[in-house]
């Protein structure tokens, strides 16, 4: 181990050790498999000034999980979780569409803008409710947000009076179905929002402060971090993003189906966050991973149909991919991998093996966030201090 691994090997190890290696590899493998199973899968053509094709569909369908996961990721970074996002989607869409339904002219852009804003405001309200429970009352996030997960759909049903409200409003519909610069409008909105949030979080110190809160809330507080208000804000942000996701998701069909919109999407969002390399315990988070995670999730669901598998196997397929990825990314599997490569030096313990995925030559050189993560402590003796809002 003292010997410096040669350049290419070291590079390869670093790539394999990267948190996003396995998700990305899975994504690429799936896409290639789809292209083989169904020639033309990767084709993108231009029709009526807009790009069309399966990859574009995938992008568009990834926007909703991406937006949800974006909020979720920040919440998770603070050591929390938000189970209410699926319900929020339903509520915001219900509010927007019910408003449009009652409006005299649902095609009026101002009316549509008002509807959207109303939906978003609802997201803020829900987020504020969650945030208050978590920060002011100190309720455990899982339970705090589970309240609205359960009740939220009921509230959405109250708003729609149990009906599936449908409206016709081309400008609203365009939010999810139109296209800008050849790209679906939803994708553009998603990209802009993602970039904005990523910029705000990573270009300011917000990201690090969130991580500090997530790793050790009390330390952060004593160091002067506004742990409460920051956490609260993050829940609000998650609420808004979920509301936006709901509007974008529901816009193409314009039907406020309170029962089914966003059902189980909170789980999808969490899966996306995890696929993206962020741990559920809080602390370190990786926004770029969300894009890969969202695309992967969408592709998995699509691949089942492309491979012409019966729908009954969708869940099995999902489970298989998820388990395979988790196992592949685990320190133990990395240990196996590394021990096969460096069979001569033969480190016996997984901890040590995980070490070898790091270039041991330059301890300070490998300073990217992900590599310092990869080099984090051996699994067993880890001494994470975890403060949970309890």
């Amino acid at each position, binding site marked *: 181990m003292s010997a410096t691994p040669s350049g290419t090997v070291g590079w390869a190890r670093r790539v394999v050790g990267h948190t996003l290696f396995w998700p990305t590899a899975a994504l690429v493998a799936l896409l290639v498999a789809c292209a083989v199973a169904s020639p033309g899968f990767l084709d993108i053509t231009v029709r009526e000034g807009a790009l069309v094709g399966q990859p574009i569909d995938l992008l568009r*369908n990834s926007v909703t999980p991406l937006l949800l996961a974006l909020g979720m990721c920040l919440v998770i970074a603070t050591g929390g979780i938000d189970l209410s996002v699926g319900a929020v989607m339903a509520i915001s869409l219900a509010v927007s569409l019910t408003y449009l339904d009652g409006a005299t002219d649902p095609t009026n852009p101002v009316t549509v803008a008002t509807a959207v804003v109303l939906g978003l405001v609802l997201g803020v309200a829900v987020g504020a409710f969650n945030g208050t429970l978590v920060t002011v009352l100190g309720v455990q996030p899982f339970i705090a947000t589970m309240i609205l997960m359960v009740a939220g759909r009921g509230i959405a049903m109250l708003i729609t009076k149990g009906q*599936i409200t449908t409206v016709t409003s081309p400008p609203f519909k365009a939010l999810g*179905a139109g296209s800008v610069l050849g790209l679906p409008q939803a994708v553009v909105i998603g990209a802009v929002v993602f970039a904005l949030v990523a910029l705000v979080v990573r270009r300011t110190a917000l990201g690090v402060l969130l991580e500090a809160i997530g790793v050790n809330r009390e330390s952060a507080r004593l160091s002067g971090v506004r742990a409460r208000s920051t956490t609260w804000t993050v829940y609000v942000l998650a609420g808004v993003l979920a509301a936006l996701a709901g509007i974008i998701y529901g816009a193409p069909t314009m039907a406020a189906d309170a029962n089914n919109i966003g059902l189980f999407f909170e789980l999808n969002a969490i899966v996306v966050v995890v696929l993206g390399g962020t741990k559920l315990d809080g602390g370190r988070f990786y926004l770029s991973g969300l894009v890969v995670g969202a695309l992967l999730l969408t592709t998995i669901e699509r691949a089942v149909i492309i*491979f*012409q598998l019966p729908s009954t196997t969708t869940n099995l397929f999902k489970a298989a991919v998820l388990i395979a990825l988790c196992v592949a990314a685990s320190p133990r599997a990395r240990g196996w991998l590394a021990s096969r490569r460096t069979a001569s030096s033969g480190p016996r313990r997984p901890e040590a093996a995980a070490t070898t995925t790091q270039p041991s030559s330059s301890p300070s050189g490998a300073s990217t966030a992900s590599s310092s993560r990869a080099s984090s402590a051996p699994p067993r003796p880890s001494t994470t201090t975890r403060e949970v809002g309890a």
Partner: protein
Amino acid sequence: GGSSTGDEGAQAGSGGDGAITVGYSQLGAESGWRTANTESVKQNLTADKGFKLTFVDAQQKQENQIKALRDFVAQDVDVIAFSPVVETGWDDVLQEIKDAGIPVVLVDRTVDTKVSDPFVTHIGSDFKAEGTKAGDWVKQNAPDAKIFELQGTLGSGAQVDREEGFDAVVGSQVIGKASGNFTRAEGRTATEAALQAYPDMTMIFTHNDDMGLGAVEAIEAAGKKPGTDIQIVSVDAVRDGLQALVDKKFNYVVECNPAFGDQLAELIKKVHAGEDVPKETVVEETTFDQTITQAQVDARPY
């Protein structure tokens, strides 16, 4: 060991003010069709029509429904009506109801049970027949169609029966299936993928209108014409579905009529009075093709 130490003494017609107390267990509120059905039931079993209704939504869970039924027995209602979430698994509770001497009206779907005479009568649509009707239309009008089937939530009664009815007629023409969970959005994504996976498809059979409307989106986005390039056969006939039919985006819609609350009310009155009722009451349901007029659509209550 049996459990039929009966308390036959349970009687009917107890309500002091003469109102018939009805315990109604709805299976859920999972679709527009279902909520329309609920609405209809509630509008027809009102106090001024002589009913005292306890309505419980099972949220598509059998255990909730069993609980509700047990509770109806505990409340000692006059008549129990319910639309079962699934066909099987009702033996015990039906036996209990029978022991308590409360008449049962089955709504919508039927049950598969060992209890003898488990219910007095059944009223509802026949999902399987709906599938068959759709299949018959396809057989006559598009015998060469290559069909992609958009399934409802896997395991739901409507999905299982409609698929069975349809496949019995034209199953050989079905080239692929995928579930859209009865929702528009998932109907759309499933169709998007299907258009790629089954390029030679010429028809979609969808288990409800909502998914069909999602399919329309996907087909249009792919630059094809729904109703022409790819025909759509659907079940339900909610207003949006019929509108699509008028707009020539759907080709055929089998009605699944949820508004049979009035029929139900009549039945319950008769059952309570101890009159003879037929074992089966089939809800009147029609089918629509593209000859439908806008006026018909506008008159549609749901």
